[in-house]
């Protein structure tokens, strides 16, 4: 290490000149170059959120069409093939293109602001993650719109997905699209983990992380471990289909159950990955409206991690009926029952926070608090299916459809909409309308329960999943009609959210930096935050830096106005993983279109693979390689330097 690399960052207070200087360093250029080149986590976060909401709408429309078909017995609005593509695409969209990316979007936007950093650890990787997500989404939807959507459900069991039974391009689109999407999830997860471990504000030790950070961090660690399993599963499927390998084909010595193991080893942890960050939103948002800190912070943080660890040992509960030996089933049954415990910790912590606090009812509060009961309903139905013999009856009926929608809508959509009401002012500087918000909430809440609560009974009455129609004499007619009506009411509720967002953007009241009087660092910066987030790097001494003065007047308060200036380049501070003591200046790379080109090259490669057009594959690979080269081209300015102590 050369002496010239050592520098002690200046400590100072904010000033107008300082801000102007930072803005010159950080602001994304206007125009197309800036649009394709930006690595600003806030812009990327908003792109994620908007794109994910677009997919939510698409998936929702697909659901509504299906609910028309199922509104009565023996309807023929859709052919079986159309219905099958719709339910498969609906599942794929909601689980892969909405539920996970929406949380990545919020985390992308919020993390550096929550952590007191100026950007994510790898901003360019962040841009790449988004572009590939967008590319994979378009790739999969091109399949759907050309009549080649997935048609074997989102979990896509073989051998039905193999070429013998599924000769079209449907499954090739799905397989390759999922491998492509896996790249996005993987690089995103790596970025989150390093960001959480290295870019926290000085003093933000590991026990002062907001629960949202715990949630996304845990989910990212899980994704890094399990996404390779599903990418491999889809890649092997594509090989089976296109090159006659026999990984899944019994006639060639393959094993259909191999698919199920690979898929669910991924699939179940993934379910937790798409709810834990949303549970984090509730854990962080609810206390603000209860006017007190969260009850049992450490318990909730640890229960997040415990859920994920147990979550690795429950995948076989999707396979209880596959003929596995009873002893093995017992183990997974026990693990699936035990996973209720960490969830219960969170539920009681939230209840206690409301009960022991001074709740103020706002739209965000309604979403966060109603999530508790929806979570419990989705949780107890999960507990029922954890019992093997009960599951032998419940599995693959509408009971499970009801369960998974309580989980995914209850624990993902409701907190996410709550998060929109909570953080929209931060992102845009404007408030959403609370009156319209009440309509929005109650219509969504009533519509959702009207649609999905009776569905438990439909399941107990034996209606199997994934049927395009049903006979008149099965006893399901009334229940299905109620569900269809409920689903449209729910859709109107969702529509009101978008109406409110558009109105808010146009004419919402000005928000100010901290409209809700929140405790965490994002509320210490202006709304919307400047490109550099923090003019000076804050130093924190507690979980709730903005409430320090009121909660512990005697203790040393967090320092928000005075701190490291870091104005000699695009810099933020690197801190140690546990105690967050500063140990390194992190040079943040500038805007570049390289990630966009990498994504474009990769997409070209995948389109080539789909069409087995090796020319196109070669072009895609060359473009990707050149873009990676441009991305990684060494620059002096990017050297890291030790902080002199």
């Amino acid at each position: 290490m050369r002496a010239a690399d050592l520098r002690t960052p200046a400590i100072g207070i904010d000033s107008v000149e300082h801000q102007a200087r930072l803005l010159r360093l950080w602001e994304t250029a206007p125009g197309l170059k800036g649009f394709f080149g930006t690595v600003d986590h806030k812009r990327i976060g908003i792109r994620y959120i908007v794109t994910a909401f677009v997919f939510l709408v698409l998936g929702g429309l697909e659901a509504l069409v299906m609910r028309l078909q199922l509104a009565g017995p023996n309807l023929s609005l859709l052919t079986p093939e159309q219905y099958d593509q719709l339910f498969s695409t609906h599942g794929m969209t909601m689980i892969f293109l909405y539920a996970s990316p929406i949380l990545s979007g919020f985390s992308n936007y919020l993390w550096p602001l929550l952590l007191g950093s100026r950007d994510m650890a790898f901003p360019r990787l962040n841009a790449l993650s988004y572009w590939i997500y967008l590319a994979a989404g378009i790739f999969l939807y091109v399949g759907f719109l050309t009549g080649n959507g997935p048609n074997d459900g989102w979990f896509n069991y073989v051998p039905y997905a193999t070429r013998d039974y599924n000769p079209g391009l449907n499954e090739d689109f799905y397989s390759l699209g999922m491998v492509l999407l896996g790249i996005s999830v993987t690089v995103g997860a790596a970025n989150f983990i390093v960001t959480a471990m290295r870019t926290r504000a000085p003093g933000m030790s590991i026990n002062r992380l907001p629960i949202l950070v715990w949630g996304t961090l845990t989910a990212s660690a899980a994704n890094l471990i399990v996404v390779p399993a599903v990418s491999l599963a889809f890649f092997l499927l594509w090989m089976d289909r296109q090159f006659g390998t026999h990984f899944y084909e019994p006639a060639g010595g393959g094993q259909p159950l191999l698919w199920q193991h690979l898929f669910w080893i991924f699939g179940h942890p993934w379910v937790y990955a798409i709810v834990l960050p949303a549970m984090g939103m509730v854990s962080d948002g609810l206390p603000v409206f209860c006017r007190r800190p969260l009850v049992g912070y450490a318990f909730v943080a640890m229960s997040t991690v415990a859920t994920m660890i147990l979550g690795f040992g429950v995948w076989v509960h999707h396979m209880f009926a596959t003929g596995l030996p009873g002893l093995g089933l017992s183990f997974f049954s026990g693990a699936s029952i035990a996973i209720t415990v960490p969830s219960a910790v969170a539920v009681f912590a939230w209840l206690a926070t409301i009960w022991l606090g001074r709740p103020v009812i706002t739209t965000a509060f309604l979403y966060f608090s109603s999530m508790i009961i929806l979570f419990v309903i989705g949780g107890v139905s999960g507990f029922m299916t954890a019992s093997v013999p009960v599951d032998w009856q419940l599995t693959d009926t509408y009971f499970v459809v009801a369960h998974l929608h309580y989980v995914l809508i209850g624990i993902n959509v409701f907190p996410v909409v709550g998060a929109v009401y909570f953080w929209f002012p931060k992102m845009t500087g404007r408030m959403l309308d609370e009156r319209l918000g009440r309509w929005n909430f109650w219509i969504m809440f009533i519509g959702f329960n009207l649609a999905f609560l009776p569905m438990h009974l439909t399941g107990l009455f034996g209606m199997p999943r994934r049927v395009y129609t049903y006979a008149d004499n099965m006893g399901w007619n009334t229940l299905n009609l109620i569900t269809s009506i409920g689903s449209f009411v729910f859709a109107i509720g969702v529509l009101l959210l978008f109406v409110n967002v558009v109105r808010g953007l146009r004419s919402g009241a000005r928000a100010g930096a901290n409209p809700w009087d929140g405790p965490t660092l994002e509320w210490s910066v202006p709304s919307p935050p400047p490109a550099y987030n923090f003019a000076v790097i804050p130093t924190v001494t507690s979980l709730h830096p903005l409430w320090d003065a009121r909660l512990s007047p005697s203790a040393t308060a967090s320092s928000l106005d005075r701190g490291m200036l870091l104005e000699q380049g695009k810099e933020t501070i690197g801190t140690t993983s546990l105690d967050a003591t500063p140990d390194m200046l992190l040079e943040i790379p500038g805007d570049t279109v390289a990630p966009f080109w990498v994504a474009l090259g990769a997409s070209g490669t995948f389109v080539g693979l789909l069409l087995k057009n090796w020319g196109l594959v070669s072009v895609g690979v060359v473009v990707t390689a050149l873009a990676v080269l441009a991305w990684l081209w060494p620059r002096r300015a990017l050297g890291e330097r030790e902080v002199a102590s």
Partner: protein
Amino acid sequence: MRPLLGYLDALGPQAQTILPLTWFTLGVSVAVCVIIAWLLWVAVRRARANGGALETRAVPIERGANGINWIRTGLVISAIPLLITLVWTMVAIASISRPRQHTELAIDVTPYQWWWQASYPGQEPTESFTTANEIHIPTGVPVLMRLHGGDVIHSFWVPKLAGKTDVIPGQTNLAWLQANQPGRFRGQCSEYCGAQHAGMGFEVVAESPADFEQWRAAQLAIAPPPSTPAQQRGAGLIVYRCGLCHQVRGTAARALSAPDLTHVMSRRTLAAGRLINNPGNLAGWIEDPQDIKPGTLMPNQYLNARELSDVQAYLELLK
């Protein structure tokens, strides 16, 4: 009306073992939801204000009680039903994974897109026969189902008698069924398997051992020869057209890729439980299966009126 596929009325020992556990877990679940909803409701009712940002900021922050007892109490109370469920689950798995008494009768069941083949093996080939979509069992004894994977994955489910067992290509899963009383029990494929997954039903017919033996003897018989001219013309059509996929034992129609028709008229339903078996439905099904079950592997036949009535005349014989 009791739903045909509902499993809240159990009519065999397996389903009867599962049902109390289902009611217990369901009861616990409902109780948990009610308690949590009540706690939440009372907590929210205590709200200081109802409004927006202004009202929120107006309520001062306070540290409040630490509340760890909530979590502790909640966990202790939750642990009790969880432990009971865990033990009960293990006991139930052990008690139903195999029948309490030896199974004398075994049936080979092979599901295909989108129908169910059931073979009753006997000591001699002449004592064996194959039927489809209607599985007869004697009451009061456990019957072994050897579930052979045919094409894609299906799942064998007769809710009033037992839970599901998947049927997976490349492996043979074992399940067993027992009915306490005579009756017809609806079964359904419950693993998605393609276009007509919805139309892949079947029936289990439980009858007294004497009736069962009588049925079995009748099923062993080969098809009677056609007598009238119409039946003879019909038999010809069946062999040359239907015989490409179907079997009618005693004739030259010997293909095994679709339901065995030797005693088709003895069955209550047609097209894997989709239609009641009567002359009108039969004619409609032969004429236009793609209308009734779009995507089914049976092609439309385009028979003229006389051919259709000939075919019907012959099929009427296959009781």
